[in-house]
């Protein structure tokens, strides 16, 4: 792993590489993703794309309860957090690569723009990216340029929204039932209310 690290630092610079929990993360700009991936595949021997997923950092580091001790004791109100402690970029695409020949792993992370979450598709580099990119598009709304079949994959036909985004409610937007008079299935606004059983607490 040390050897790989040195090579990566040489290729991508020291700033791009993060090591944590014994894993390497390479953070790259989204515009050069295909080039980076080709480099990783051909020169570093990462022959398999194990996983590809989108991450939404919208509520990163926010908690339902502010549990820090202050002079007036623990505050137990749900705190609305301002924009200042938001994560810098909202969306990231994360690639997990595996080199079967060299027995190495690496994680490649690329942030994409919030308003236009577009990144080049890596289907030309690894065939397995096809469905993973469809999944990231479906659940996270990230668009993959040059992907030739970017359809929804996991959600229902005609589904609206991207369910793994943090602003998509846990209970969903619509519910479905069979309407006797119309003789078909109809969609209506959800009638249940969101319920947090265990609040989200951050303890440092």
């Amino acid at each position: 792993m040390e050897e790989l690290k040195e090579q990566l630092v040489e290729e991508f610079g020291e700033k791009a590489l993060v090591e944590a929990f014994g894993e390497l993360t390479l953070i790259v700009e989204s515009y050069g993703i295909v080039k980076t991936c080709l480099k990783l595949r051909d020169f570093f021997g990462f022959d398999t794309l194990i996983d590809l997923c989108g991450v939404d950092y919208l509520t990163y580091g926010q908690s339902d309860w502010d549990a820090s001790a202050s002079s007036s004791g623990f505050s137990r109100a749900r705190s609305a957090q301002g924009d200042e402690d938001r994560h810098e970029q909202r969306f990231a695409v994360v690639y997990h690569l595996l080199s079967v020949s060299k027995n190495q792993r690496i994680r490649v992370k690329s942030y994409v723009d919030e308003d236009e979450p577009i990144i080049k598709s890596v289907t030309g580099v690894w065939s397995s990216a096809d469905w993973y990119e469809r999944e990231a598009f479906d659940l996270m709304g990230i668009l993959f340029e040059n992907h030739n079949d970017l359809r929804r994959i996991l959600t229902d036909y005609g589904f609206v929204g991207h369910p793994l985004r943090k602003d998509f409610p846990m209970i969903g937007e619509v519910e479905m039932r069979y309407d006797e008079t119309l003789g078909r299935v109809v969609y209506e606004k959800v009638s249940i209310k969101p319920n947090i059983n265990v609040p989200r607490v951050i303890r440092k």
Partner: protein
Amino acid sequence: MAEIRNYTLNFGPQHPAAHGVLRLILEINGEVIERADPHIGLLHRGTEKLAESKPYNQSIGYMDRLDYVSMMCNEHAYVMAIETMLELEVPERAKYIRVMFDEITRILNHLMWLGTHALDVGAMSVFLYAFREREKLIDCYEAVSGSRMHATYYRPGGVYRDLPDKMPQYLKNDFRSDKELEAMNENRQGSLLDFIADFAKEFPQSIKQYDDLLTDNRIWKQRLVNIGVVSANRAKQMGFTGPMLRGSGVTWDLRKNQPYAVYDKLDFDIPVGVTGDSYDRYLVRMEEMRQSNSIITQCVEYLQNNPGPVMSDDHKVSPPKRNNMKDDMESLIHHFKLFTEGYSLPEGEVYSAVEHPKGEFGVYLISDGANKPYRVKIRAPGFAHLASMDEMVKGHMLSDVVTIIGTQDIVFGEIDR
């Protein structure tokens, strides 16, 4: 002359050979498949979204429900991700118990696969025999966790409780005579470990039975040999792992290449195929069952001789002893905090993978320091395998689609998540 065009056939989602809720849109020219477009997501339950809304320990049960024929292996990946982030030490005995149950699970999975695969291809009896053995292993699940399928047995820091000293026995009822009852309970007189040891002793004969029924069977070979051939390079390109990759001749097994738990201390072999067709993958999985059986025997031997704790004594993540809670304030607080708020992980991200019976099952966990995961991404092996469906069935006959679904070992719980 009328023009002959391709036609489109809808296969599933309600079809016994679709192994759950797979909907395939097949474009067929005569009986030859030109294109296959799997529609998935009919079993999508939003496991990742649900896990984001719950404290870490409350999602272990969801992991069982992903690949619902290899429950404990899923849990293993998830608890390992948490343990890595907490840098938590797991007692040796717990690791052996986990490995033993991972291998029991592997046999459970492969028996299910073998039975249904053979059933799809036209051999009814293997299914019945496979379920005979599965029943015994499921009883082991029940003995250790109280549940026959969704065990929720692994915990960050170990396993929920130690193996029971007594194997549960069949009870008397109106439908069985005393003599029958005695025969049924014959191997259940001792502990769970004795029962498993007895199973491991008998199991090679059972495998031999399946072997006799299938391996040289003319129909079986006609249906499997040279069907769905995948080259080693294509297999890696398409993200294959597990038996699907090994069937194509690549020696890759996380248990050997990136050992976790105690796999580095155990002796076992990795079978690989040669041609990469369905028959090779069948042989690989059959041999894997034999190897798993040998691993189980080794684990039983260790566990019988080495008692010890099975759970970390870090009470931030593991519940304190009930007795201590009666007169120890700290234990009571630990218990209360653990079961209400849970525990927080340090900020960061981790990917932990295990060699699941179907391939590499990984959990990518991002934590922002809260008591719930910020993002959980489950890497299911079946997802990548099913994605290759189009390439694998192209040019094959309609009946071979069924063989290829079987050989891919598709389970929708993990694919749809």
